[in-house]
């Protein structure tokens, strides 16, 4: 458990001379990343901009991002963890088994060269995406990158950053942490916050049918989750708050159309590096905001008679 060594995006802009994009395709998924924050920017200490930076992609296929790279490493699918582990060993001057390294799809020399380049960097950064965090290994693939970045600090300045998904997922993470102590998958049924991914995380709860009602705000599990989860959403009371009628809305008992946050509703969004940005809605909406609807629900629940558990014989 090395830890998490990171920075805000301006540090990358001003200093990074060595940038790895691993398991992500910012050219298509984070379209302003190159131009606003990373390789195309002229930074305070990287005055030559693109020419002063080396950009490397690591992915299982050639993407538009790979085509923009100085070096595009293509590895076999499902080998990110093995590559990360090999890098950690080589970085420490430790031996590895050459035959098994070859299964990654890169030669040992290529990987050794990558380690040397990393060590020679003045400021290295690894951005890692869902190609890593959502494939076999999941959080362990991410942990691999985190450890590489932490351990590289024995040699030079090095950081990493996850390429977060759309919407204000970072904001949800930040707020949950300060109010409950945990970033996601928080269970409050015993009266205080508890955290256990796999037990309380959304997809697991829905697939197992551990909950008996669902309120969905700004997400569309009906479009992305496994069939047992979708069946469960259909079978149990589901409430959706969303500006659009989503796949989940079609399974739900109640759908509220709400104003689009950032367009007609205000608030605060947290950027992927956790910098808070005030949203400035420019348009008016005929619909209420998510916040107003949630507050109305809370008030309606508070008006209900105080709840007491029913004796077993009376349960349906």
């Amino acid at each position, binding site marked *: *458990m090395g830890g998490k060594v990171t920075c805000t995006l301006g540090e990358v802009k001003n200093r990074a001379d060595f940038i790895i994009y691993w398991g992500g395709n910012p050219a298509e998924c984070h379209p302003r990343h190159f131009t606003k924050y990373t390789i195309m920017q002229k930074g305070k200490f990287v005055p030559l901009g693109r020419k002063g930076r080396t950009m490397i992609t690591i992915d299982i296929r050639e993407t538009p991002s790979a085509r923009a790279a100085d070096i595009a490493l293509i590895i076999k699918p499902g080998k990110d*963890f*093995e590559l990360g*582990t*090999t890098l*950690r*060993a080589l970085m*420490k001057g*430790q*031996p*590895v*088994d*050459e035959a*098994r*390294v070859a*299964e*990654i799809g890169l030669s040992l020399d290529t990987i050794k060269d990558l380690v040397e380049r990393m060590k020679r960097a003045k400021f290295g950064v690894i951005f890692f995406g869902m190609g890593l965090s959502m494939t*076999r*290994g999941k959080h*362990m693939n991410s942990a691999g990158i985190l450890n590489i970045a932490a351990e590289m600090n024995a040699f030079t300045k090095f950081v990493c950053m996850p390429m977060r998904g759309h919407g204000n997922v970072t904001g949800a993470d930040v707020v949950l942490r300060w109010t409950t102590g945990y970033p996601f998958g928080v269970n*409050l*049924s*015993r*009266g205080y916050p508890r*955290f*256990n*991914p*796999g*037990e309380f995380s959304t997809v697991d709860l829905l697939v197992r*049918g*551990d*909950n*008996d009602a669902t309120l969905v705000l700004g997400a569309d599990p009906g479009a992305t989750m496994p069939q047992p989860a979708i069946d469960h959403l259909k079978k149990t009371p589901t409430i959706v708050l969303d500006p659009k009628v989503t796949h989940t809305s079609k399974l739900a008992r109640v759908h509220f159309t709400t104003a689009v946050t950032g367009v007609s509703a205000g608030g605060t969004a947290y950027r992927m590096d956790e910098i808070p940005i005030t949203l400035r809605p420019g348009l008016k909406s005929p619909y209420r905001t998510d916040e107003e609807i949630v507050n109305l629900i809370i008030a309606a629940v508070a008006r209900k008679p105080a709840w007491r*558990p029913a*004796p*077993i014989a009376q349960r349906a």
Partner: protein
Amino acid sequence: MITLTLKQAVDGVPLEAESICPDVIAALDNAAIRALPVYLGKRQCRIDDFFAVDGETSEEIDVHGDLRKVRWIGRGMTRGRISIDGNAGMHLGAYMKGGTIDVSGAASDWVGAEMSGGLIRVAGNAGGQIGAAYRGSRSGMTDGTIVIGGSAGLEVGMRMKRGLIVIGGPARDFAGLEMKGGTLVLRSGAELRTGAWMNRGTIISLKSIPLLPSFLYSSSYVPTVMGVLGKHLGSLGIDLPLKPAAGTYQRFLGDTSVKGKGEILVWHH
């Protein structure tokens, strides 16, 4: 002997039943046992809302029924015996310090998590994170024995420090992840990334398994300590192949990515 028989199915919202534990129950009379709290989601209920309760003041608890969604049975127990005729839910015997738990059916995730003593036996399959550390904790189990008859899930023995885990069926990825010590026996092998980032400890696989590039072949032999282990496992009813005529153990050392001094012994005919 106290007998708990499930009378109300738990097949939706899980039931949290850390009250089913010898330390909690041993001194109580029947009425007090019936009134012990169990938690159905946010609702606090009584044990006898879900179980028929027979007996009192005993360290031996017999539980009957499909308890696959009944969690935290035997939490932190230090003595006595729980015998489950059926399946068991998550966190079975978590933080256990002593005593025995037997399950005739299957168990779920987090069996024996962070335990420090005692014996857990599951005849059927189990889930992931057996004997493991809860998220962020520096160590998993620090002693004790877990024997799973069937298969197991991800991260078996994650960060275990001492103790013994035996898995009968195949384990999934990351068996022995970040292991710090102790012994993990995989009688039917495992999927990917066994022993990832291990520091110390011994993983024994009786079937060939794929290994990370950070594990290096060392030698082939039958280590003498296997005799001791074999005897101990024999007392638990488990056979370990030991005879040099039948084969040998290939010894792999790693994980070099963390300068680890762990070993994986793979049985080879």
